[in-house]
């Protein structure tokens, strides 16, 4: 069996010592996959992604990135190890320009030629950002900010990219655009783990999915299966008939 890009085993984590939000969760993302984590509010989706990123204390269990244990690694060192994370809100430096935001993503890198190359790649992926490179990120629209946030994460040259609700507060049109870009990012060899509320749109571009409830993974499987699964639809997606109809 080949090593997973990201592997979570029996993970227990929470914000305060008394309360565990994650109660022994397990999941796996193979290299080159897009995996979506779904679940109702309070299921621990964001906490999961933050615990992997090193922002929430891991009490027990394992988090492995290409086989290396990364639980307990300081958040700013995760980026150097190849794990980038895009928070759901407050994910751009509002008073820095678009280009400076992107430069901050590459702060730990010393290979300036490769960084310059990646900057051009991000601008090719999001031509809108190239037009606004001098503008401060705080003045951008919601969709453009999301592009800056994803671009900033890509500038680290990650092997695994984690996205926390990339479609939150975006119009259906922009949601489709962002998801199309996520697929494009995957074709460049980046493995993607995302948390989403917008289950149908997210599963449509994903290979596999997990449904969380109460700090554990309840259901997992191929994205197509999950979309068709009536239990998933009724319990967690708020979809009555599924996509197969």
């Amino acid at each position: 069996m080949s090593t997973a890009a990201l592997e979570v085993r029996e993970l227990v984590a929470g914000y305060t010592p008394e309360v565990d939000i994650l109660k022994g969760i397990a999941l796996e993302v193979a290299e080159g996959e897009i995996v979506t984590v779904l679940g109702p509010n309070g299921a621990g989706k964001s906490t999961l992604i933050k615990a992997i990123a090193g922002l929430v204390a891991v009490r027990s269990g394992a988090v492995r990135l290409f086989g290396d244990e990364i639980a307990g690694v300081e958040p700013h060192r995760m980026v150097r190890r190849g794990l980038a994370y895009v928070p759901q809100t407050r994910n751009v430096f509002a008073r820095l320009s678009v280009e400076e935001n992107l430069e901050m993503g590459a702060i730990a890198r010393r290979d300036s030629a490769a960084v310059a190359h990646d900057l051009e790649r991000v601008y090719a992926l999001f031509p809108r950002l190239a037009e606004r490179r001098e503008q401060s990120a705080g003045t951008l629209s919601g969709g453009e900010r999301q592009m800056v946030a994803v671009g900033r994460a890509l500038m680290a040259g990650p092997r695994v990219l984690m996205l926390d609700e990339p479609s939150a507060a975006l119009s259906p049109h922009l949601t489709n655009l962002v998801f199309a870009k996520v697929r494009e990012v995957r074709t460049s060899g980046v493995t993607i783990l995302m948390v989403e509320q917008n289950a149908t749109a997210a599963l449509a571009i994903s290979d596999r999915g997990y449904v969380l409830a109460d700090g554990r993974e309840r259901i997992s499987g191929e994205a197509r299966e999950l979309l068709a699964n009536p239990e998933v639809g009724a319990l967690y997606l708020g979809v009555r008939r599924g996509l197969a109809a």
Partner: protein
Amino acid sequence: MIGQYVADGVVTGATLALGAIGLTLTYNILRFANFAHGELLTFGAYFALLFAGAFAGAQTFGTLSFGAGFVLATAGAALATALVALALDRFLFRPLRKSEIAVTLVIASFGASLMLRNVVVFVWGPEPEYYSRAISIASEIVPGVRLTSDELFVVALTAVLMLALHLFLARTRLGKAMRAVSDDPALALVAGIDVQRVIRATWIIGGALAAIAGVLFGLTVQVLPDMGATLILSMFAAAILGGVGSIYGAVLGGLLIGVAQSTSVAWIGPAYKPGVAFVLMLLALMFFPRGLLGEKR
């Protein structure tokens, strides 16, 4: 006559500006009002006095009261003061940053301020000191305005340091990282910025600028254990008037307050000088809460 008051105000204002730049920088990046910043000025001034002793009697530059030795002593003072600032952060502020109560750091900085001031009195005594006992001759710059070479130097150095700091923050990797941490420390961490390293860099720069401001004040006025404590409120007023976080704002605020204090002497007498700074600060808070050059959030 008014021209002379304005010119004197610009000189005082330049010192205030330099102190306020350091204050606005640490305030913006570390997110607390550091009342011990004044004592960093005092320490800088006394360190320079200490190191300058090694160069006593050396050649001076033209009509300036000091020479190359004093420049070296000032550089040494900037370095030593940066170390004091780092030590304060490591042993006082860093353990307290974890506190949920925002005012903890401010109160701690009050305590640090008192402690440092008394260390100065203990080591150097309460009497005023001077870098040079030589009499400087003020020459007429424009009709009716006389300034000494040292005073002109103070204004020029402040301008150079302001520009250098601006370029540093706008162009260099570390400068941009400092602005990023100031903007959003949590996101900075996620983006891979070593926030602890950025905080250390902020203290080094803030401490060094404070030390230079202290030396300049000592050069044009005198060196006193409570010089920083006297200046701190005017520096806060300058930073707030100009807009917290803005370097040019701190300079503008410093100059405005310096000039306002100096010209007020003509009308209401010198006893009310400190009050003038506060009236300006209150007006700024009421009518320009973000300051004259403050950035929008």
